[in-house]
C-alpha cells in the first residue's frame, strides 16, 4: 500500500517555483547573445537563490539562511554588478554577439541533457522521505554547476566566463542551503568575501587582456602549448 503523500506547505511549493526559475536563469546564461543579457540573467538567478534561502529559512526558522539570503542579495545583485560596471563599463554594454564554439539551439539541447544527468546522478541519494527542499534543490544545484562548466567550455570570452564561474558557485550554494542549512556562519561569510575577490580579480584581468589583445576574446590567447620537437 502506497503511503499517502504529505500535503506540501506553501513554502515548499514556492521554493520549487524558485528552483525552476533559478534553473531557467542558468539556461539563460547559456543562451544570452550579449554580455548585458548574461549579467541580467545572473542577477535574476541570484535573486531566486536568495528567495529560496529565505523560504527555506521560514519553517522551521533558521536564521543562518536569512544571513545567506541577505549576503547573496548584497554581493551578487548589488556589489558585483556595481564593481563590474565601474571596472568594465564598455565590456558590459557592448552590443556585439558573444563568440561561442557551439550554436545556441544545440547548446540548449546539451544543457537539457546535463539537467537530466543531474537528476539521474542525484536520484539514488534522495529517497522519498529525504526532505522536500533537498529533492528540489540538490538536482537543480548540480544542474547549474554542470551548466556553468559547460558555459565555460563553449564561451571563450572573459565576461561570460566570469558569469559561468559565478553561476557554478551559485549552483553549489543553491544545493547547499537545502542539504546543509546549518553550516557554521563563518563559512558563509568567507564564501561571500571569496566571490567578491574573484569578481575583482577577473575584472583586473579582463582589463589587462583588453590592453594586450584589443578584445576580451580569451579564446584567442592560445600560444602556450606543447608541439612536436624538431
Amino acid at each position, binding site marked *: 500500500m502506497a503511503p499517502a503523500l504529505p500535503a506540501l506547505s506553501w513554502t515548499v511549493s514556492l521554493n520549487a517555483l524558485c528552483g525552476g526559475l533559478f534553473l531557467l536563469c542558468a539556461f539563460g546564461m547559456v543562451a544570452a547573445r550579449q554580455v548585458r543579457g548574461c549579467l541580467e540573467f545572473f542577477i535574476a538567478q541570484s535573486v531566486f537563490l536568495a528567495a529560496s534561502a529565505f523560504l527555506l529559512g521560514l519553517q522551521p526558522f533558521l536564521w543562518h539562511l536569512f544571513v545567506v539570503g541577505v549576503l547573496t542579495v548584497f554581493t551578487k545583485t548589488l556589489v558585483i554588478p556595481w564593481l563590474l560596471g565601474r571596472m568594465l563599463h564598455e565590456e558590459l554594454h557592448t552590443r556585439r554577439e558573444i563568440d561561442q564554439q557551439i550554436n545556441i539551439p544545440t547548446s540548449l539541447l546539451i544543457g537539457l541533457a546535463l539537467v537530466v544527468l543531474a537528476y539521474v546522478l542525484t536520484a539514488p541519494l534522495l529517497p522519498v522521505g529525504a526532505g522536500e527542499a533537498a529533492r528540489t534543490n540538490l538536482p537543480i544545484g548540480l544542474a547549474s554547476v554542470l551548466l556553468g562548466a559547460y558555459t565555460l567550455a563553449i564561451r571563450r570570452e572573459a565576461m561570460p566566463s566570469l558569469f*559561468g564561474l559565478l553561476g557554478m558557485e551559485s549552483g553549489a550554494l543553491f544545493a547547499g542551503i537545502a542539504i*546543509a542549512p546549518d553550516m557554521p556562519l563563518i563559512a558563509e561569510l568567507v564564501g561571500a568575501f571569496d566571490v567578491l575577490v574573484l569578481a575583482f580579480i577577473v575584472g583586473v584581468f579582463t582589463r589587462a587582456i583588453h590592453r594586450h589583445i584589443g578584445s576580451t576574446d580569451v579564446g584567442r590567447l592560445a*600560444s602556450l602549448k606543447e608541439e612536436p620537437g624538431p
Partner: protein
Amino acid sequence: MSPNWILIVPAVAALLCALPLRAPAGAVITLASSGAVLALTISVAAQVQAGHTVVGLPGWIEADGLSALMLLLTATVGTLAALFSWGYLAHTPARPWAVRGYYGNYNLFLLSMLAVPLIVEPNVVWTAVELTTLLSVMLVAFDNTREALEAAWKYVVLTIMGAAIALLGILVLYWAMQQAGGTQFTWDGLRAAAPRMAPGRAELAFLLILVGFGAKAGLVPLHTWLPDAHSQAPSPVCALLSGVETSSVLYVILRLLPILHAVPGQRLEAWTLAVGLISMGVAVLLLFRVRDYKRLFAISTVEHMGLMLAAAGLGTSAAHFGLVWQIMSHALAKSFCFYAAGIALLATGTRDISAVRGLIRTSAPAGSALLLGGLAIAGAPPFAVFLSEFAIFRAGLTEGHYLATSLLIALVALAFFAIMAPINRMVFGTPNGVAQPGPGLPRTCLAAVGLAAVLVVLLGVYVPAPLHTLLRMAAAVLAA
C-alpha cells in the same frame, strides 16, 4: 607557542610590504617573515612528533602529523623562494610598485597555503584553497606579457571552476555527516561519523571533491592550465606553485581517504588508482613533446601528483609512508628544479630547450644546478625521490598489486628518460651560440640554490630521526 602565529606573521608582513619603503625592504620583510614562520612550523612539528596535541582554536585550528609535515614543507620552500626572489626580482625590469605588490601578494599567498593544513573545518579549508588561487594569480601574471596573462587566465578559470565543483562536494559531505548523526564538521568529526554514512552520498561527495580539487592539484583531465601557469610565473613563484601548492591541495583529497575508507561499501581505492595512473600516463606523453625547460618541470609535477594519488590508491600503511615521503621529496626537489631553471633563465635569457646547449661551460652554476635538479626530480639514486618512489613500488608489490605497480614503474622509467634527455643536451651539448650569456647571477639566488641543494642531497642519504617520526605520524593519519 600557539600555532595561530603561523597565520598572523605573514598577514602582518603583507601589510608591512604595502608600505612605500625603499627597494630591498619588501624582500627583507618577506624573508624575515617566512623565516619566522619556518621557525614556528619547526616548533609545531617538534611538538607533534613528541606526541603533544597542537591546538590553536579548538575545532578550527589544529595540527596533527600530516598537517605538521605540510606546514614544514610550505614554510621551507616559502623561505628559500623568498631568498631567491630577492635577487631574481632585482634582475627583472619591474617597477618599484610592482615589486611591492609582488612581496605583499607573496606573503598572502603563503598565508593561504599555510591555512590549508592548519584548519580542520572542511568548508573553511575550501575557502583557503580557493584563496591560494586568487592570491597567486597576480604572481603568475607578474611578467605582464601576453603569455603570462594567458597562463593566469587559464589558471583562474579552470581552478575556480574546479573549486565550485569541490564546494558542492563539501556540502554533500556535510549532508552525509549530518544524516549519520555527526555534529562536528571537522576532519575528526567526519571520521567519527563515517561508519554510519550513506555510501552513495559519501561517494558522490568524494568524486566531486576529487574532480574539483583534482583540477587544482594538476590531475588529468583538468590539468591543462598547470604547465602554462607553472612555467610562465617568475621562478620563485613556480617553486611554490609546483613544489607545495599542488601537494597542499592533494592533501585535502588525502584527508578524505581515511574518512571514506570507514564508509561501508565504497570503491574509492579503484578511483584514486585509476585517476593517478591516467594522470601519470598523460604527463609522460606530454613530457616527450615539451620544448620549454620550465614546462618540463611543470609537467613532471602532473606526473608526481598522479604517482602520489596512485600510491594512496594502493591503500596500505607502507604505501602511505611512501606517499608522505614522496610529498616531502617532491616539494624539495621540485622547488630546487625551479630555482635551477630560474638561474638558467637569468644566465641564458631563454626558456627554449633547443636554444640552450653546453650550459655547464657557459654558466657552471646554472648547468650543474640544472643537472642536479633533473637527476633529483627524475628519481635517480641516491636522491630522495628515488627512495620514496622505491618505497611506493615495494609497498605495491608486497600487497600483490602487480599490474598497477608495473605500470607505475614503467611510467616512472619513461619519465626519467623524457626528463634527462633534454637536460643532458642542455647541460653537455655543443654550444650553438643562440642563447645570450646574461649578467652575473645574483648572490641571493645562488645562496637559495645552494641551500636547497644541500637539503636535496642530504635527505637522499640521511633522514634525521625526528623527521622520520613525523613522516610515520603523517602516514598514520592516512591509515583507515
